[in-house]
């Protein structure tokens, strides 16, 4: 190889190396840039989810507080006043002869007092704080069964774990909403409420009602599915749980919710 050839060979090799290095740099840059941007996007999405979670939590807590306030007002003020009126009426009844009229008024008043108690109990589950989730659900199941309209079978398995108060309220609200849905819309004659306690809490609420059309959207937009399902979904998300729904027209529906403990 003569001098010219050697020089050319060197220049050629350097040129080739530079161009290949450039091509390689472009490829590596694209990979690195994409990774960096994806990481940033992931971070942003995590922040957004955390922010939404906080907002949701704040909304639900303020909703709970508002319910508690209304329940207390109903129980302490309206309930107390109605009870006083009832006593006054009772006293007046013994002095007057219009027994029939008084009896009707008393019955209406009793019903009103009972309604106020029920609303108050639903709004503020005092028993939940006193006796815990299992006892409250057991009572709720018995109360609904005693009403005679529908039979609620409550079952529980596994070793119970104590939940934080806020989480317990959310679980209770989910079950309350599911039972309400079955009572109001499903035209069911039987509801099965089953709780499995392990590393997770698995809730099964199943009825033999008429079923419903499952929404296509995973987030159960409240304008399309109604407030109930939307609220159940929100609370499940807040508890970082998952929800599986099976429903068939005229064969009932089944909600399986898994919540981490």
């Amino acid at each position, binding site marked *: 190889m003569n001098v010219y050839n050697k020089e050319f060979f060197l220049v050629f090799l350097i040129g*080739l190396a530079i*161009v290949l290095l450039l091509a390689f740099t472009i490829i590596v840059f694209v990979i690195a840039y994409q990774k960096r941007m994806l990481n940033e996007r992931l971070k942003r999405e995590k922040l957004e989810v955390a922010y939404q979670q906080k907002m949701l939590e704040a909304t639900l807590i303020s909703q709970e507080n508002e319910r508690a306030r209304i329940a207390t007002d109903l129980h302490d003020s309206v309930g107390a006043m109605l009870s006083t009126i009832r006593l006054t009426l009772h006293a007046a009844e013994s002095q007057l002869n219009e027994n029939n009229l008084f009896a009707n008024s008393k019955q209406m008043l009793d019903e009103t007092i009972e309604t106020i108690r029920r609303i108050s109990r639903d709004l503020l589950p005092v028993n939940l704080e006193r006796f815990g989730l299992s006892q409250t659900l057991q009572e709720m199941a018995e109360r609904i069964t005693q009403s005679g309209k529908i039979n609620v079978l409550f079952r529980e398995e596994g070793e119970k774990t104590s939940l934080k108060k806020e989480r317990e309220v959310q679980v209770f609200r989910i079950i309350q909403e599911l039972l309400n849905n079955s009572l109001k819309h499903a035209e069911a004659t039987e509801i099965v409420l089953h709780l499995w306690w392990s590393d997770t809490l698995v809730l099964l609420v199943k009825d033999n009602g008429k079923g419903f059309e499952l929404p296509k959207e995973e987030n159960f937009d409240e304008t399309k599915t109604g407030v109930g399902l939307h609220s159940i979904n929100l609370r499940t998300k807040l508890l970082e749980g998952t929800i599986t729904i099976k429903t068939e027209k005229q064969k009932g529906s089944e909600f399986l919710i898994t919540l981490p403990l």
Partner: protein
Amino acid sequence: MIFLNVLSYIQSISSFVLLLIFLFNYSSTDGNFKLIGALAGISTIANILQESVPRFLNGAYLNQIGEAYQLLSVFVISLFFLKLNNTKFARILFYVLNVTCFVLWVLLLVYLNDHVLFSVYSVISYIGLNVFAILYFGYLLKYLPSDNLLTVPEFWVASAVLFNFSGYLIITLSYGYLVEVLKENTILYWSLFNVFTIIFYALISYSMVLHVKNIKATSRERL
């Protein structure tokens, strides 16, 4: 000479392997990767012709086969990228590149073995394909796929194109000097062409395997 022959055979085998991968998984490839399969087919036919024609025609038409293959490969690869990133600029580039290459190819048929014309033809086609690959990288940066890029088959095709045609470009730019000055010593330089082609088909074969895997995985998910 033996070394160059061995490289030449490996190069032929590499495009044939890609063709086999494509044919065995024909139903699991989408339209875009069928183009890559077509490229492998064209390359295999060109290789067979380049091996067999000189035996019968005493070396004639050897360059014409290569030039025709180059024209078709430019068309197929640029169409592949155009389908991935169909912007106005890409469309204009596609038409300008292919029309220019076609005109130059016709001129090469008229002025047989014109080195300068062949260099111009090659340089334009390699730069055009590199621009397509870079445009596709730009598209990836703009739309950021959520998958790891190393699992995106098209990314490997673009990398192979950029790497291969950058190498081709440098060799081609030295073409005039190689022919005029080095004369019989050019054989080593030409072997570089084969090395780049082998790497090119190896990368494209990998992308084809990835593509088939992805398609099969997607079909399984649907089931």
